[in-house]
């Protein structure tokens, strides 16, 4: 029988259960998103060979074409990512028979670097953030849509159920019991960053508008079978002529594009059918000085160098690209980048504390009734939050320990992440149901906090030993990406030790105290 609940009661129910069902996935998305803010810096840390200074001048003919003609003369598509301060190597990509292949080029030395043997931050953590590495039929993207809608629902329902939203903004009592501090931390982090949580989630959905609303677009375009991409982006395409052709000077096309843009740097050059008479060269601008994530690309006839089209986004599409830029931070602004990182961490805290509150609110009652649900959820909370951190740090350690010439090294590294994560889930489950540890929910948290601290220290130490770029050297040589990552690892270790020690001192409350928390909680 469907009961009649007041609006606040029904929103309370929705907030509670949507929270417990989606929090692990939400934590994963926010944690990986937070790491992705510094994905290029993590790349430098994980790929020591790419720790070079960004070149002053780049020439397509001199630095890219010679290598592409050797590496992929028959490819249908070449992609050249130009270097900049965060990504000092030039990245060559081509569509081979087995999909997209890439190589890094040290432009100053004019040499192609060996395969780094890792996917790094931009190849592993970043795609994890938006696809969970589930690419088949866009399952990951759809899962992300459901998780994002759940997040928006949680935010709105959280506001509705709060009786004292303004007072909660200023309430934090870390000296009180661990449960009260958890409740305050959940409320404060939610209220403080409510606009950020809402905008970052909504903008994430808007980025994938063309995937999620594909069915609707198909209906709108059903009459004449047109293409929204062609119409909106002024996209030029033409089939290969199947006749050999020679590329005109791409550097001249770059110079022409810069003149058309009125300044700016090249982000990427895409060449379709490179050695064909119908070759197309697309020059994209790096949006380093604007929020709108707009490449303003110029497309040239590859053989003649004639301009075929210049992309000019309509105001509506610029709004969509504005949300994309707001989410993906394509612009150069270190303070804002660090703010995104900090806000991402606060979001993780909000999600983790929400899960903990669920456990604490039910612990006394379920203990009394002999139910084990709270223990299972506590185990999932440990594996889904601390476990993700432990798995990430395990991957960083593996990055330094695996031999460089190991076959499929990047894949092995990835499996280390997933193996560590599975263990990080099994460990709290074992703790939850082991007779000697099941009465104390802290044990699994504490042990994983110690594991995280150890792994973070080990990763920083291994980086110093294996690459000779220890913290002081990296700072002295201006390798800020490496030094920053090392500092973050050390900070993680310190925080994890502090958390483990606090968990050892302040226990989860006795049954009576937990029962009193029932009445206090929202």
């Amino acid at each position: 029988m469907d009961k009649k609940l007041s609006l606040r009661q029904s929103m309370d129910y929705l907030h509670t259960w949507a929270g417990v069902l989606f929090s692990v996935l939400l934590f994963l998305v926010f944690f990986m998103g937070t790491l992705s803010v510094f994905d290029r810096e993590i790349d430098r840390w994980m790929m020591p060979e790419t720790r070079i200074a960004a070149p002053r001048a780049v020439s397509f003919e001199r630095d890219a074409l010679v290598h592409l003609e050797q590496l992929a003369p028959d490819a249908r598509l070449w992609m050249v990512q130009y270097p900049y301060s965060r990504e000092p190597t030039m990245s060559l990509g081509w569509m081979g028979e087995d999909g997209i292949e890439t190589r890094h080029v040290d432009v100053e030395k004019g040499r192609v670097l060996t395969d780094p043997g890792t996917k790094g931050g931009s190849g592993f953590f970043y795609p994890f953030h938006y696809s969970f590495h589930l690419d088949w039929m866009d399952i990951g993207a759809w899962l992300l849509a459901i998780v994002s809608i759940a997040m928006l629902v949680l935010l709105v329902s959280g506001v509705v159920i709060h009786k004292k939203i303004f007072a909660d903004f200023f309430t934090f009592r870390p000296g009180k019991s661990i449960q009260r501090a958890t409740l305050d931390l959940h409320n404060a982090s939610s209220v403080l960053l409510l606009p950020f949580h809402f905008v970052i989630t909504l903008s994430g959905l808007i980025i994938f508008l063309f995937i999620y609303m594909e069915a609707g677009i198909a209906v709108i375009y059903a009459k004449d079978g047109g293409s929204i991409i062609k119409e909106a982006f002024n996209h030029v395409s033409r089939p290969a002529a199947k006749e050999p052709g020679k590329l005109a000077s791409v550097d001249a096309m770059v110079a022409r594009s810069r003149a058309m843009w009125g300044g700016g740097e090249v982000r990427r050059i895409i060449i379709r059918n490179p050695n064909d008479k119908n070759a197309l060269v697309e020059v994209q601008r790096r949006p380093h000085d604007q929020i709108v994530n707009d490449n303003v690309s110029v497309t040239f006839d590859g053989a003649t160098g004639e301009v075929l089209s210049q992309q000019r986004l309509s105001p509506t599409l610029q709004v969509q690209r504005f949300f994309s830029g707001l989410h993906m931070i394509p612009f150069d602004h270190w303070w804002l980048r660090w703010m995104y990182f900090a806000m991402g961490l606060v979001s993780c805290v909000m999600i983790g504390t929400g899960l903990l509150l669920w456990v604490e609110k039910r612990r006394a009652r379920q203990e009394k009734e002999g139910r084990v649900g709270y223990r299972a959820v506590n185990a999932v909370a440990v594996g889904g939050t601390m476990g993700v951190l432990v798995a990430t740090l395990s991957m960083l350690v593996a990055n330094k320990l695996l031999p460089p010439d190991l076959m499929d090294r990047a894949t092995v590294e990835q499996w280390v992440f997933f193996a560590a994560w599975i263990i990080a889930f099994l460990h709290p489950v074992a703790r939850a149901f082991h007779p000697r540890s099941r009465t104390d929910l802290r044990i699994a948290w504490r042990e994983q906090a110690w594991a995280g601290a150890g792994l973070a220290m080990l990763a920083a130490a291994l980086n110093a030993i294996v690459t000779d770029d220890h913290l002081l050297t990296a700072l002295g040589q201006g390798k800020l990406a490496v030094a920053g990552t090392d500092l973050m690892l050390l900070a993680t270790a310190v925080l994890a030790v502090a958390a483990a020690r606090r968990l050892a001192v302040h226990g989860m409350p006795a049954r009576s105290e937990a029962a009193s928390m029932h009445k206090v909680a929202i």
Partner: protein
Amino acid sequence: MSNTRFTWQAALTRALIGALGGFAAALCFMIGTASVLAATGWLPRADAAIAAGMPAFLIWMMAVLIAFGAASVCRAAGWVFGGATGFALLGWMCQHLPRAV
């Protein structure tokens, strides 16, 4: 913690209405609004689709909130699917009526 709760059947039905019905409502909103914007000549077709697609996610979110906030499952279904039908009709009218006129 609130002691009030839905039965699991009611919660599951409301969740399905919110998630699936909400997605249908969002799609219908996008089609209906884009059709109106394009038919009235306010925006070109591609822009109309993008302009309507962005707020469609808020419709999806609101559908989930309505599915759980409505007094009964029937009312929840009525609001969500009724809204979706309204938007779909609007889209159909905009796409077909001008031809009839």
